[in-house]
């Protein structure tokens, strides 16, 4: 579906070197701090910036051969950009119909009604949440094969976020060959939606795991100095000094549950794994 190998982009104070793979029928999450390189990666995929090196293949096609008409197969949401604020949704209808041969007007209108979006109000007068809803609805309204979603749920309340995630689940359920590449700061969204997660930090992918594996096999071990000295550290990915001793991230929770029953072992969450991968020390 999408394959990125050593995508490089250099700026004065930042350099990106990113590799990732998105398979058909999968929802892949890209997580990382602000400025980690998520948006740069998305923009390179969409041809909005010129990579300095590496390869991007979309549906098996090199991105330089991925022409304007091929973008009919993509649905896009960008975190810092959207439809012109000087237009109304009513204005967008003929434009989207003209741009996308598979634009489903009935679906689009139905979703607008579902999310209570007004047809005749200028988009610049929309709240952040309303803009986010419109962007996701538009991205899913032309039967795209691949959605590229950069922070699509930013600025939404819990209910609206849940509705949008449902919309994305419906999008995936309609065709098993579809895929989504999504970035978000809200880890609960990613936990419930993504099949696998990539973590990007300072322009490099530092972690990739299936979400199920992350939630079932990753754990935080809270150990005292004495427990730490006796601990088998072969399966410790990161450790961090704490006031009580050490906090250790492992991807072999069962091993420590069975062999160290006295340890305080907490289930790994996306947030905790992110924090430990970024702020913890490598052994």
């Amino acid at each position, binding site marked *: 579906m999408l394959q990125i190998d050593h995508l490089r982009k250099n700026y004065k104070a930042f350099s990106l070197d990113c590799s990732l793979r998105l398979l058909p029928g999968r929802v892949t999450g890209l997580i990382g701090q602000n400025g980690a390189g998520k948006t740069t990666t998305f923009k390179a995929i969409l041809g909005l910036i010129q990579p300095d090196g590496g390869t991007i293949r979309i549906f098996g096609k090199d991105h330089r051969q991925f022409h304007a008409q091929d973008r009919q197969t993509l649905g896009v949401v960008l975190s810092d950009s959207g*439809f012109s604020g000087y237009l109304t949704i009513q204005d967008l209808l003929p434009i989207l119909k003209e741009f996308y041969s598979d634009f489903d007007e009935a679906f689009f209108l139905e979703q607008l009604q579902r999310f209570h979006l007004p047809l005749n109000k200028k988009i610049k007068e929309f709240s952040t949440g309303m803009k986010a809803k419109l962007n996701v609805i538009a991205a899913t309204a032309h039967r795209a094969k691949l959605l590229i979603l950069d922070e699509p749920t930013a600025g939404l309340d819990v209910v609206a976020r849940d509705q949008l995630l449902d919309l994305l689940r419906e999008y995936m359920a309609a065709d098993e060959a579809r895929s989504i590449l999504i970035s978000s700061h809200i880890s609960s969204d990613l936990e419930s939606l993504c099949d696998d997660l990539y973590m990007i930090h300072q322009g490099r992918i530092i972690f990739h795991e299936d979400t199920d594996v992350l939630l079932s096999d990753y754990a935080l071990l809270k150990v005292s100095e004495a427990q730490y000295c006796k601990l088998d550290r072969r399966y410790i990915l990161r450790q961090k000094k704490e006031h009580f001793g050490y906090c250790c991230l492992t991807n072999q929770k069962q091993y420590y549950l069975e062999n160290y029953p006295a340890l305080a072992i907490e289930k790994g969450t996306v947030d905790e794994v992110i924090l430990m991968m970024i702020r913890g020390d490598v052994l």
Partner: protein
Amino acid sequence: MKGLLIKDLKLMKNQRNFFLLIVGVAVMMAISLENSTLVIGYLPFTCSLFTLSSISYDEYENGSAFLFSMPFSRKAYAVEKYSFGLLIAIASLGLATGITAMAGAFQQSGSITETIQIALMTLPAILLALALMIPFQFKFGGEKGRIAALGTVGLILIVYRQIKQLAEAWHLNLTALFEQFSALGYPAFLAAALLFSTLLLVLSCRISISILERKEF
């Protein structure tokens, strides 16, 4: 390209109060001024500037990034802007000619032929203005683009002055050359002006395509 054209027409429709104001001012000018042909200069030039505004609207809140993720090429975008500019120029020129002709008929002054001749001679001037300003708008954006365009006009005037001085030093009379050219008669002069301005517009469009294809969003 049709989708882009619809977008710009929708943007234009949403600014209808601005256009109504301009048309109102044009009508007032035609009624109150002795030389109502000034409307032919005022209305199309002011309306054609909306082409530049439409680029600013596309760029509003970094909208270009999202826009260029849609299924059209950067070349199509550039060509559409020139086509849109041309469309507005011709439509507003027609409207200005109509207003001027009607004002002339009411005031029983001027002739329709003269009005049409002035209108046709205004078209190359509008094309030249578009050819000059659109690439700067693409390269530098709204404010800086206008400053750069004005700077270029200044540069062109300086270059013209230098050429004139050089010609005088070589005992060439440029003024006589221009007089000879205008002696060709109105149709030939108009055809030459239209040809020259169209060629510059095509060249300008190619420059804009090149600017856009290198641009990052």
